[in-house]
Structures are given as structure tokens and as C-alpha cells.
């Protein structure tokens, strides 16, 4: 940049003085064609992403408004979904409840196991086992969700009777785990299946994060007389904290939006069941998938309205996760 300034100010008379417009890119350092092209491409991609997000939001909001304005029930609290009758009455209460509760179950089951597997792979497993196990987990992440759905319906569901009975016997008094011996196609079933489905992605990302923990922090803990578990508690887990949260958000995103697998194992209805074991309930994605095919124009708008709510829930969850990470930013492992 110094040289450029020199040329433009102290150059001998024959050199033409560049105009303001010509000088500007030089001052920014983007004088080469490659730089300009790359700048354009990356800026364009960034803008395109925003445009797509805005377009989706506008589309969802517009169609949703059409439907909600004609809803004779309360869109947020109605426990039915009747869009083919006059006047239409539909609400997202069951779907919101089902989506959130099944995702919570999935997270509660999957995150601790995923973190444990990731720690095992990075800190306990013999070196020659690490590769093969990681490979199997990658494979699990690549299995299409309909395959999980079929496996869930044909293998998982028939085997859940025992678990449900046991939960009912010992924890039935809580109400959450009481069971009327209906088919085990309930919110808990969905949660368990979702947990299995999001386990690989959380495991993989957590494993990468734990691998990034600098050797010097683990050695610092060891030199203080920490056992292997204490090293993990002192140096590895705190360092990987924000990464594990991000990994969980990836898994949660998949759980919130999972469609086919949920539709395959759940026997949906439009009631909020206090017990997680009793058949019924629904999720946004499952409800859209089951009803979209036979819905009329208005019915589709109503389903899109429910999709908008899912969109908002996802945004809120991601925002909350970012806040949790940002609040501890000054203690981040990235400051090492």
C-alpha cells in the first residue's frame, strides 16, 4: 500500500493522476482480478443466503396469514385440526407440545451418550479401535430417515412393551410414565427413535471438538495430579463445552424437523397426553407429511402456518444456544 500511495502522490508529471474512483480499490488492497472475483463470490453467497431466508419467511408468513385469518378455533390452543369443514377450526397446541417433548426426550437420551462415546473415542479407546468405531458412527449418520422409521416400526415398537410395562410399574405414579397398555407408538417411542437418529451427528461433532483440546491443557491437569477422569473434567469438558452445545443444536435441529421416521412409528391423534407412554400426539413435521397429500388449498395453507411455528421455534432454540455460548465467551477455550 505504501508503494501505491507513493505512485499516486509523488509520481513524476507524465504519470496521470488517478481519479478517486480508480484509487479506491487500491486503497482497499483488492487490485488483483482474483481478489475481486473472490470478494464478489463470497459476498454474493452471503447475500444469497439472506435472500433465501427472507423468501422462505415471506412465503410462510403470507400463506399462514391466509389460513389463520379464517381459523374459527384459536390457532395456538385448539385441540383439533379440521380444515376441510366450514367453518375451519385448527390449532397447533398438540403439534407444538409433541415436537418439543419428543425433541427433549431425544436430547436427554442422546447428548450424554454421545458425549460419552466421543470421550471414549478420544481418550479411552485403544488407538486401533478408534478408526473403525468412528467409521461405523459416520455410517449411522448417513442412514436415510425412512430406514430408521421402518426399523422403528418393525423392530423398536414391538420391543418397547417390556420397557413401557417396567416404567409403568415403577414410575407410573408420576403420571408421566403411566401406561394403559395401548400400542407403544407414543411420544416416548418417537423420542427414543429420534435419540438414535441424532446420536451420530452429536457424537461426531463432539469427538472433533474433544480432539482439538490442546495437549498442554491436558498436561497441565495431569501435572497437578489429576486422574484421567479428572483431566477430562478439568480440561476437556470445559474446553469442549461450546462445541458440544453446537453439536447438540445440530442434533436438535434434526429432531425438531424429523418427518418420515416420526410418521412411521407414531399413531397420531389430536390430544395432549399427560403420559409419555400412551399412544397418540403429533409433531409439526409428521402432521404436515401425513395431511399434505389430501389437503385442499386452504388445508395446505393451514399446514404451512404450522410450519411457520416450527420455523420460529427453531430460531428461538438456536438463538438461546448462541446466547448460552456468548455469555461464557471470555472463558472460551479459543482464548488459549
Amino acid at each position, binding site marked *: 500500500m505504501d508503494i501505491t500511495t507513493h505512485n499516486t502522490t509523488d509520481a513524476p508529471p507524465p504519470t496521470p493522476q488517478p481519479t478517486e474512483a480508480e484509487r479506491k480499490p487500491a486503497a482497499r488492497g483488492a487490485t488483483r482480478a482474483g481478489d475481486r472475483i473472490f470478494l464478489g463470490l463470497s459476498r454474493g453467497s452471503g447475500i444469497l443466503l439472506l435472500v433465501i431466508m427472507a423468501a422462505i419467511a415471506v412465503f410462510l408468513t403470507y400463506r399462514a396469514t391466509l389460513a389463520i385469518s379464517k381459523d374459527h378455533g384459536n390457532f395456538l390452543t385448539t385441540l383439533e385440526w379440521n380444515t376441510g369443514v366450514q367453518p375451519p377450526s385448527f390449532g397447533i397446541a398438540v403439534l407444538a407440545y409433541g415436537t418439543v417433548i419428543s425433541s427433549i426426550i431425544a436430547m436427554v437420551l442422546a447428548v450424554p451418550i454421545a458425549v460419552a462415546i466421543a470421550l471414549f473415542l478420544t481418550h479411552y479407546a485403544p488407538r486401533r479401535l478408534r478408526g473403525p468405531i468412528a467409521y461405523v458412527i459416520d455410517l449411522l449418520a448417513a442412514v436415510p430417515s425412512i430406514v430408521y422409521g421402518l426399523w422403528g416400526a418393525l423392530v423398536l415398537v414391538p420391543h418397547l412393551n417390556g420397557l413401557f410395562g417396567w416404567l409403568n410399574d415403577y414410575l407410573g405414579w408420576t403420571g408421566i410414565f403411566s401406561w394403559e397398555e395401548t400400542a407403544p407408538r407414543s411420544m416416548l417411542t418417537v423420542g427414543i427413535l429420534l435419540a438414535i437418529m441424532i446420536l451420530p451427528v452429536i457424537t461426531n461433532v463432539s469427538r472433533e471438538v474433544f480432539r482439538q483440546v490442546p495437549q*498442554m491443557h491436558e*498436561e497441565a*491437569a495431569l*501435572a497437578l*495430579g*489429576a486422574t484421567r477422569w479428572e483431566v477430562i473434567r478439568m480440561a476437556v469438558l*470445559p474446553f469442549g463445552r461450546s462445541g458440544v452445545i453446537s453439536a447438540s443444536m445440530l442434533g436438535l435441529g434434526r429432531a425438531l424437523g424429523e418427518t418420515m421416521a416420526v410418521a412411521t412409528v407414531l399413531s397420531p391423534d389430536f390430544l395432549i397426553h399427560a403420559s409419555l407412554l400412551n399412544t397418540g400426539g403429533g409433531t409439526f413435521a409428521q402432521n404436515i407429511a401425513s395431511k399434505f397429500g389430501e389437503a385442499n388449498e386452504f388445508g395446505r395453507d393451514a399446514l404451512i402456518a404450522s410450519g411457520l411455528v416450527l420455523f420460529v421455534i427453531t430460531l428461538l432454540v438456536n438463538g438461546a444456544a448462541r446466547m448460552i455460548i456468548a455469555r461464557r465467551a*471470555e472463558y*472460551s*477455550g479459543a482464548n488459549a
Partner: protein
Amino acid sequence: MAKRIDVSGLSAYYGSFRAIEDISMTIEPRTVTAFIGPSGCGKSTFLRTLNRMHEVTSGGRVEGKVMLDDENLYGAGVDPVAVRREVGMVFQRPNPFPTMSVFENVAAGLRLNGSYKKSALEDIVEKSLRGANLWNEVKDRLNKPGSGLSGGQQQRLCIARAIAVEPKVLLMDEPCSALDPISTLAIEDLIGELKDRFTIVIVTHNMQQAARVSDRTAFFNLAAVGQPGKLIEIDDTERIFSNPSVQATEDYISGRFG
């Protein structure tokens, strides 16, 4: 209480590669011993055998004996974790835990050893930070992240963390090599104070530093790359730097090689 280290016939390996061979020496309590020698001569490896950190490296193993007073660190049934609680270590690059505050960093080792009352913990943290000549600089920011301190302060924080658990021996692996001269001076002064309470062993590439801080100096060398490092001689620092008994030592400290 500081303890005496007595090493005999010690060799350390990385897999099948022998990094150091047949080292014997005695380190008296409440002295500072400096290890000098060219890169790759095994002085850091040897240092790490003194608190059983060498075996943390994959393929790392040790033959021989290290006596800490009457206890063989490599005796059957000795828990390396227990050894490291007696023999503290400070590393080349300052490595405070980035996820912890200044206070928590100093308290980290104490929390491993059991539960303390809050007031007792505060007392030990203050005493350790004072011991590391850091208290006045950080007393108003104990709850701020340790990674926010300057490099020299971070290294003194690491020293405070190491001495908080009252080890018998303090090992320092090139503790000043990442620091500027003023921070280096602060650490060197600190070493002079700490030797009243601990047995200190310091690896350094800086021969002036060895001459300034140590009572005894050990010179390590290796015959060629790929050969194991050996202890050439250990003697009073004054003698090593004025009239060493081995020619190689004199060549090294006078800058004729290395």
C-alpha cells in the same frame, strides 16, 4: 518439605527409540538445578521422567530408579497420579486453563485433593499468588479469566497453581522461553525465592539464565542425531561455567558448538 532426588541408571524410551541413556545424579533439597544442552539431548525428556509425565506420551517408558527421599517413583504399585501431586511442573508455554478464572486456576489442584472450606481455599490461593509474586497484579481480578493476563503473568499464574498444592519438588521446562526479558527477570527472581521451600529443577536453553538462577548445572549432550542423550557432567554452577571438567561442556558453554 522439599525432598532429595536420587536418580540411578535411568533410561527413557519412545517406543523402541532410546531418548536418554543411563543417567544418574543427585539433586539436593532446596537447591536450584539447571539442565542445559543442545536441542534433542533429552533434558526435557529426563525432566519429565522425574514426575512420571514421560509415560503419558504414547510409547513412552522408563527404566531405572528415581528416589524421592526413600520412595522409588518407579517402584511397583506406585501411582503416577500420587507422584505428580508431590512433584509439580511448569511448562514451556504458559498454560492456565482458559475456561477458569484466575482464582479457579490456582484452586484447581487443591480441588483435586479434597474439599476445602471457602475461607481456607481463599487463604491458600492468596498465599500461592503472593508466593508467585502475582498477588498485587491480580487481586482485583481474581474472577476474571486467567487467559486475559499477559504471558509473563500467565506463567506466574501457572507457578502459583503448581505451588498451591505444596509439592516437594518443582520442575520447570524452559519456563521463560516464551517470555520477554522483563517477565523473564520476574520469574528468575521468583525462582530464587521459591528455592527456600522447594527443590527446583529447571531446563533452559539460556546459559546466562542457568548461571543466574542455579546452584548446580547439569550438561546433557548426544553423540549424534538418533543417538540417545547422555548426562555429560553435573557440578556446581560456578565450576561448570568457569572450569568444567569435560571438554565438551566447555565447548558448549563457550559457544564453540550447539
